[in-house]
C-alpha cells in the first residue's frame, strides 16, 4: 500500500473541508483579478458552506473512522461540531455582507480569513492527535487575531488585535508547554496511545504532580478560548474593539473550537481522572457565571453587554461539561443542544446589534428606546433572541437548553452539581433583568432622539441591511424549529455523544513511515 492510496482514501471523507478550502482559494484570488465583482465572494463562500453542511449531514450516523493514521477521527461528534460550525459560518457571512464595506479594500481577505477560521473549527472537532490539535488551534487563533484587527482605520480594532495577539501568545506558550509534558511522559502524540500509556504508567486515575500541572496548563488554553474566568480578561476589550461580525464569530465560532478540544481531551485523556478536572472546571464555571452576569448588568453598550453575557453562557455550558462522564453521557448531549441553540440566539442578537449599529450609528441601549415604531421586524427578532438568551420561554428553545444543562448538573448528585445549578439559577435573575431591559426599552418606551430621526422605511433595493436581516431571520427560524423539534434535536445531540472508548472504529492507528 503506497502513501498516495493511504492519503487518498482519507481525503475521500474530507469533502466538506475541501469545499471550504476551495472557497478560501477563491476568496483570496477573486478580488485580485475581478475587483469589479466583489459581491460574488461571500456568495461563493455561502454556497461552499451550504455544500459542506449537506455533505456533513449525509456523513452523520456513519461508522466512526480514524483517518490519516489517527490524526483525525471522523465520528458523529466531529460531524456534529462541523454542522454547527457551518451554520455559524453561514449566519456570520450573511451578517458581514453590508458591514464589510468598512474594511475598504480588504473585503476579499476578510472572507478568506473567516473561512479559514471555520475550517479550523471543523478540524478541531475531529482532532485526536496532539500535533493536529496544536496546528488547528493555532490556525483558529491566528485567524481570530487577524479578524479582530480588520478595521484598520479604527484604533480600537487595532488595539483589540494586538491585545488578543499578546494574550494568546501567553496561552499558546502554556498550551504547548502542557502538550510537551504529555509527550514527554508518554512518548506518544495520539490520544489513545497516550491514554494507554497513562494506564501503563499508573498515572490514571491518580495523576502525578507533573500531570496535574500539565492538565492545568492545557485547561488554561481551553479556558482562554472559552473566555472562562479568570482567563477572560481579554474578552471585553477584544469584543468591543473587533468589528461586530467578528465579535459574533468569536463569541460562538471560536468557542465552538474550544468546546471541541475540551470534549475530546477530557473524554479521551482524562476520563478516569474525572475528579481533578471536574472540580477545576466547576469552580471556574461558577466564577464565570457570577462575574459574566454581574458585569453585564452594568453595561450600557449592547455589544459589551453581549460580550460579558457570553462569559456567563460559557459558565452555563460548562455545567454540562462538568456533569459529563461515562455514567452521565446526558451532560454532553445537553452541551451540544445548548451550543446549537446558543449559536442561533447569540448570533441573532449580534446581528441585531449590527443592524442597529449600521442604521443608528450607536449601540447604546438607551438610544434604542421605541425602536419598534420604526423597525418592527428587527425589534421583534432581537427581542426573541434576547429573551431566549435570558432563558425565558418565548419561544422555549433557550429555556429548554438551560433546562437540559441544569438537569444534567442535578443528575451529578453531588455537592458540586447542586452548587453549580444553584449558582446558575441565582445568576439567571440579573440575566433576565439586563436582557429584558433592552427588550422593554425597544418596545414600551417612547422613541429616543436617534430613533425619531430614522427614516420611516428603508429603501429595499439598495440597502446593505438586506443580508443581515436574513441572518436574523435564519436565527429566528432556527430558534422556532429548536422549540418545536426539541425531542428530535435532543436525539440528534444524544447520538453525537461518543458513548464508549471501546466503540468499533475502522482505520489504522499507525502512520506509514517512509
Amino acid at each position: 500500500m503506497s502513501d498516495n492510496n493511504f492519503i487518498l482514501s482519507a481525503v475521500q471523507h474530507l469533502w466538506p473541508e475541501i469545499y471550504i478550502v476551495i472557497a478560501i482559494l477563491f476568496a483570496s484570488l477573486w478580488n485580485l483579478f475581478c475587483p469589479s465583482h466583489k459581491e460574488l465572494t461571500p456568495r461563493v463562500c455561502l454556497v461552499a458552506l451550504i455544500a459542506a453542511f449537506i455533505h456533513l449531514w449525509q456523513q452523520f450516523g456513519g461508522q466512526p473512522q480514524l483517518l490519516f493514521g489517527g490524526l483525525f477521527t471522523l465520528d458523529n461528534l466531529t460531524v456534529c461540531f462541523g454542522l454547527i460550525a457551518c451554520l455559524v459560518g453561514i449566519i456570520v457571512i450573511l451578517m458581514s455582507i453590508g458591514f464589510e464595506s468598512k474594511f475598504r479594500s480588504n473585503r476579499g481577505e476578510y472572507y478568506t480569513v473567516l473561512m479559514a477560521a471555520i475550517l479550523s473549527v471543523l478540524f478541531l472537532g475531529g482532532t485526536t492527535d496532539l500535533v493536529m490539535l496544536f496546528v488547528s488551534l493555532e490556525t483558529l487563533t491566528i485567524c481570530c487575531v487577524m479578524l479582530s484587527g480588520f478595521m484598520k482605520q479604527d484604533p480600537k480594532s487595532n488595539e483589540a488585535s494586538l491585545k488578543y495577539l499578546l494574550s494568546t501568545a501567553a496561552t499558546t506558550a502554556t498550551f504547548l508547554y502542557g502538550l510537551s509534558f504529555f509527550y514527554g511522559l508518554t512518548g506518544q502524540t495520539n490520544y489513545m496511545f497516550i491514554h494507554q500509556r497513562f494506564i501503563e504508567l499508573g498515572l490514571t486515575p491518580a495523576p502525578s504532580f507533573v500531570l496535574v500541572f500539565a492538565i492545568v496548563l492545557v485547561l488554561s488554553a481551553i479556558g482562554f478560548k472559552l473566555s472562562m474566568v479568570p482567563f477572560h480578561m481579554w474578552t471585553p476589550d477584544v469584543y468591543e474593539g473587533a468589528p461586530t461580525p467578528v465579535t459574533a464569530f468569536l463569541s460562538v465560532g471560536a468557542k465552538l473550537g474550544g468546546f471541541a478540544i475540551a470534549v475530546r481531551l477530557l473524554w479521551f485523556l482524562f476520563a478516569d481522572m474525572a475528579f481533578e478536572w471536574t472540580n477545576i472546571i466547576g469552580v471556574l464555571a461558577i466564577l464565570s457565571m457570577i462575574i459574566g452576569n454581574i458585569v453585564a448588568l452594568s453595561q450600557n453598550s449592547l455589544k459589551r453587554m453581549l460580550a460579558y453575557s457570553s462569559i456567563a453562557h460559557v459558565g452555563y455550558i460548562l455545567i454540562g461539561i462538568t456533569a459529563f462522564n461515562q455514567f452521565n453521557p446526558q451532560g454532553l448531549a445537553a452541551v451540544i443542544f445548548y451550543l446549537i441553540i446558543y449559536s442561533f440566539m447569540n448570533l441573532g442578537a449580534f446581528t441585531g446589534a449590527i443592524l442597529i449599529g449600521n442604521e443608528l450609528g450607536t449601540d447604546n441601549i438607551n438610544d434604542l428606546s421605541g425602536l419598534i415604531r420604526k423597525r418592527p421586524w428587527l425589534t421583534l427578532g432581537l427581542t426573541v433572541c434576547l429573551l431566549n438568551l435570558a432563558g425565558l420561554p418565548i419561544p422555549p428553545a433557550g429555556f429548554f437548553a438551560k433546562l437540559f444543562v441544569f438537569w444534567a448538573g442535578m443528575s451529578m448528585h453531588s455537592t458540586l452539581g447542586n452548587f453549580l445549578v444553584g449558582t446558575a439559577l441565582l445568576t439567571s435573575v440579573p440575566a433576565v433583568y439586563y436582557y429584558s431591559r433592552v427588550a422593554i426599552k425597544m418596545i414600551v418606551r417612547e422613541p429616543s432622539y436617534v430613533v425619531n430621526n430614522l427614516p420611516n422605511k428603508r429603501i429595499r433595493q439598495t440597502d446593505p441591511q438586506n443580508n443581515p436581516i436574513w441572518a436574523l431571520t435564519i436565527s429566528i427560524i432556527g430558534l422556532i424549529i429548536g422549540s418545536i423539534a426539541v425531542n428530535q434535536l435532543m436525539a440528534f445531540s444524544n447520538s453525537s455523544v461518543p458513548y464508549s472508548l471501546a466503540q468499533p472504529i475502522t482505520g489504522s492507528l499507525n502512520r506509514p513511515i517512509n
Partner: protein
Amino acid sequence: MSDVSPLLQSAYWIVLAPVIAASAIILSYLLGIKINRTVAMGLSVGAVAYGFIHSILIFLVLRDNATPYVTNIDWFVVSNFKLAVGLLVDNLAAVMLIVVTTVSLLVQIYTHGYMREDPGYSRFYAYLSLFTASMLGLVVSTNLFQMYIFWELVGVCSYFLIGFWWYKPSAAYACLKAFVVNRVGDFGFLVGILFLLLATFGFWQAHNDQGILMFMDPSGHGVDLSGAIQWGMQHGTLTTTFLGIGALTLISILIFMGPMAKSAQVPLHVWLPDAMEGPTPISALIHAATMVAAGVYMVARAYPIWLNWTDPLHPTVVGAEGLTVVAWIGGITAFIAATIALTQFDIKRTLAWSTVSQLGYMFVGLGVGAFTGGIFHLFNHAFFKAMLFLCSGVVIHGLHGEQDMRNMGGLRKPMFWTSLCFLIGTLSISGFPGLSGFFSKDEIIVGAWDFKGYGHEILGWLMIFTAGLTAFYMFRMYLMTFCGEYRGQAHPHKDSAWSPLTTPLLVLAVPSILSGYLGCNLDVLKSFSLNPNAFSQFIHFGQHAHVEEPNHMVMLISIAVSLSGMVLAFLVYMTKALPINTWLTNAAICKPFYNLFYNKWCFDYIYEDIFLKKILLPVYTGIWNLIDMLIIDNIVNLNRTLALVAAEVLKHTENGRGQYYAMVIFACVAGITLYVWLYVR
C-alpha cells in the same frame, strides 16, 4: 385503531394550512417580493376555507358515532417527565372547529371589503391566518400545557391585531392594556397548572407512556385529568387545605384566572372594550366570536378540575366551590356589563360590553352545571355576535369612521341589508322566541334557576333581569342606529346585498336564526320528558347526554322580561313616549347610578388612578431605586475601583496591559495547580 377515519387523523392540516398561508405572506414580505394583494387574500381565505370544509366533514363523521381521535408525539422529554403535543378531535372540539373556521372564513372575506384601502392589507391577512391557526391549535390541544402555549400565541396575535393601527395612541394604549391585563390572568393560569402538576405528579409518572395533564386518554385507562384528580383525592395531595380553602378549589380558582382575563370577566374585563381600537373584522373574529370564547372552551375542556370530588369516583356539580366561583363571576360580569352597555354611545364599545355580558352567561351555564347550555350559547353567540360586529363595521365604514350612535339614526334606508341583519342579531341576542339566542339563553337561565350552590336564590333572578337589560340595550342600539332621523353630517354609503361587506352578514344571518334548533327538542317543550336534544347528544360531559328539565314558568318569565325590555326601548327611543332617559340622567336618586354605569363602575379609575399611579408605581420605583442604590451603583463603583487599582498597579510596574494579561494567566495557572494539588486531590 384501524377504524379511525382518515378525516380525523389528518385534522392537523386544518391547523397547518393557515400557518403555511401566513408564513408564505410573511416570507414574501421579508424577501422583498411584492406579492399581489389578491394572492395574499387568496392564500389566507383558501387555507381557512379548506379548514371549514374539513371541519364540517369531521363533524359529520363524529355525528355517526365515530370514536374521538387522540394522538400524541413527544415534544420534550427529560428522564421521567414527558411533555407531549398532539391532536385531539372529539365532539366538543368539532363544534369549536366549526365555529372558528366559519366565523374566520366569513370575516376574512369581509376583510377584503373593509381593509381594501389600507396599506397593511397583506400584513393584516398574515396576522389573521396566524391567529386562526393558533386558535385552531388551541381547540385541538391534547393537554393543558399545549393549550397554554396556544393560549399565549392567540394572545400575541390579539395584541398585534389590536395594535394594528399602532400609530394611533389609543390603539397602542389599548394594546398595552390588553397585554398587561392578560399577563395578570395568565400568571394565575400558569401557577395553577404548575400546582396541579405538582399535586398529581406521581400519577403522571406512574403512567408515563403518554405525557402529562392529558384531557383524554385514547386507550381508555383513565390516564386523563379526571383520573389524575381522582388519584390526588385518594392520595391526599389534593385534599390539603391552605387557609381553609381546599387545594383543588385553590387550583381551580387560579386556573380560572386565565379565562377571567381572556374571556373578559370581572375584575379582569377592562381590556376588552378598549380592544375595539383594532379594525372591526378583528373585533368580530377575535373579540367576539373566537378568542374570548377560548376561556369558556378551556373550562369546558378541563371541566374535571372544577367539579366536586368529595367522592372521588362520582364527582358532582353540587356544592363544587370551583364551579360556584365560575358561576358567580359569570353572573356578576353579565349584570355589570349589561348595565354599562345601557349607557354607552360608541357602537362598537356597546357591542363589546354586550360580549362581556354574554360571556358571563356562558360561564354561568358552565358554573351551574348546565354544561351543554354554556357550550350551546358559545356556539350560537359566535354567529350572531360576529354578525352584529360586522354590521357595525359596515355602518362605521359607510359613515367614514363615525362610531358615535348619537350621530347616526335612520340608516335603515341606505343600509337595508345591514339593518335587517342587525335586527336579526338583536332579536336573537335578546332571546326573542324562535331565534337561536333564545334556546341557549333559556337553557342557561333554567340551569341557574336549578342551581344548588351558594347564593342560588339570587342567581336565577339576576340572569332573568340581565336578559331584560340585554333586550333593552340591544334595541336601544338598533333604534338609535337604524331608525328615526339621520343626525350625522357625513353622507352615508348605500350597501348592496352582493358586496364582500354584506354577503358575510347575510350568510351569518342563517345560523343566527336557525342554529338554535340544533339544541331544541320540540318533544321536550310539549311534555316534561327528558329527551336529550341533538346538540346535547353530540356535546356532553360524562357518560350521558345532559339536558335541563324545561321549566315553562322560567321560560315564560324570561320571555316576558325580554319583551318588556324591547317594548321599553321602543317607547323610549322610538316613539319618545317615555322620557325615561332624561329623567334617569337628571333625577337625584338615579343620577349616581347612571354615573356609575356610564363610568363603567369605575374599574378603570380604580386600576389606573388608584392602584397603578398611587400604589404600584411608587412602590415599584421605590424598590427599584433601592436596588439601584444598593447593587447597581456598587457594581459600577466596584468596576471603577478595580480599574483604578489596576491602573495604579500598572503605573508602578510600568508594564503594558498585554504583559499584565500574560502575567495574570501565568499566575492563575500556578495558583490553580497549587490549589488542585494541595486541596482537591
